[in-house]
């Protein structure tokens, strides 16, 4: 699958190279670009605002210290950062589990517990969110109308004024890009897999 990695934009490649090279100023750029995405992991999986901030801090600290281990051939910088954040979250959940005990954790969470997402799924979503943001504006609009407004391709053509063929092509290509990105960077496969290579 590595042959199918989405071609990184020149900007992403340059950023990744400088990052690996140890240019300190680049960490701030990486943080500006992906800090929000990384922060989502903690916010979504942990109940405390402070813990989420700790995860974000620990992720960027670990990323910088381990920057030489980032391999652009295996996936994107965003995917790598999300993998680190996921492991940070899992470690914290384990500590919470140890501190409070299983029963207490379940009791406290009550009926809302079923809404607490597992970190891997959160990362998978965020990987796709990152990819969605990199579609062209037109392609993104078409794909989002199908995803979030549940419009058919015919309805999308009506709403956007685009030819039917163009809409279908945007849907197919957009979906293919998301799928490839998920396969490369998703928690079960990419950097996030921690060496565990299991098919879904």
């Amino acid at each position: 699958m590595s042959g199918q990695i989405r071609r990184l934009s020149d900007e992403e490649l340059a950023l990744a190279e400088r990052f690996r090279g140890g240019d300190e100023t680049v960490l701030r750029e990486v943080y500006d670009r992906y800090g929000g995405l990384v922060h989502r992991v903690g916010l979504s999986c942990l109940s405390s605002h402070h813990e989420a901030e700790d995860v974000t801090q620990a992720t960027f600290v670990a990323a910088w210290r381990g920057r030489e281990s980032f391999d652009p051939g295996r996936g994107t910088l965003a995917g790598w950062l999300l993998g680190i954040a996921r492991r940070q979250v899992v470690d914290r959940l384990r500590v919470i589990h140890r501190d409070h005990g299983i029963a207490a954790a379940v009791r406290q969470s009550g009926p809302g517990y079923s809404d607490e997402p597992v970190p891997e799924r959160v990362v998978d979503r965020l990987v796709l969110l990152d990819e969605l943001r990199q579609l062209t504006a037109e392609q993104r609009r078409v794909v989002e109308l199908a995803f979030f407004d549940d419009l058919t391709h015919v309805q999308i053509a009506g709403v956007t004024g685009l030819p039917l063929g163009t809409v279908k092509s945007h849907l197919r290509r957009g979906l293919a890009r998301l799928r490839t990105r998920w396969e490369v960077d998703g928690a079960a496969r990419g950097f996030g897999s921690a060496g565990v290579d299991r098919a879904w």
Partner: protein
Amino acid sequence: MQHADSDQLALIALGEPLADDAAELTAHLERCDVCRREIDTLRQTVTLARETVEYRGEVRPPEAVWDRISSELGLTSAPGVGSSRDAEVSGDAPRLSGPDAPGDGPMVRGSAATGSDAEGAVADGTRPDDALDPAMAGSTVSALRGTGAHRASGRRWGKAVAGLVAAVLIGVVGTLVAVRPWQDGVVRPVAASVASLGPVPGGPGGVSGRAVVVQGPDGPKLDISASGLPLQRGYYEVWVFDGKVKMVAVGVLGANSKAVLALPPTLDLRTYHVVDISLEQYDGNQTHSETSVLRGTLTS
């Protein structure tokens, strides 16, 4: 017939009805594992992509986080290039995501042509109920659970499932082997809880499956495989259930009706001891559809 064209597969994965003259395509899909696998994978992608609706608002960590990073790493060059964005943080309070958080709900978005009110109408009014397999007429794309929107009446199975838990468990074989903590970085299929999954009363027959709890370096996972699941519009979701009222969604069944899904590390499987697979629709509702197709128990 050659394989279905990729435009068509993408539309199917998005949940669009097939055209009236698609009998040949339908017949092909029923026979062709390659195309079905492709659809499965695309559907999983669509499901995940749709879930990003939770993350639509912009989030930034507070600038203080950068200061701590910079200080921990002893960076010399640390001008706050992006500090002006700090203001954006306030609007997005930390929370557990889910349907109980209406403030960040779906469809609140300027670029869409339709709002949340219109969404149900569009889905309900314009999509004929023609699942891939016409015999499975129960799978409408449009049911908006919990909003009072009416659900199609063609459902053949599943609706009464919630009240039948006791009956469901009869005949289910469950074997608890052991649950040992992960120790040395290797996934251990040896430390496992096993459940055989079987049909649900009122659900489709001829279905079976197996669920194994595996302890991995990242915590417990549920390794699930099923067979005989009907080809349906929508997707199959895996849950663990306390046998009474509480359910936790653990993920979506993947290509070939298999999946390895992470379980929340804090989840007590002695409580959540029933594994359940349900048919879900792309309706934005994250609660259980009450359409179970497979179930089994992890005994303790």
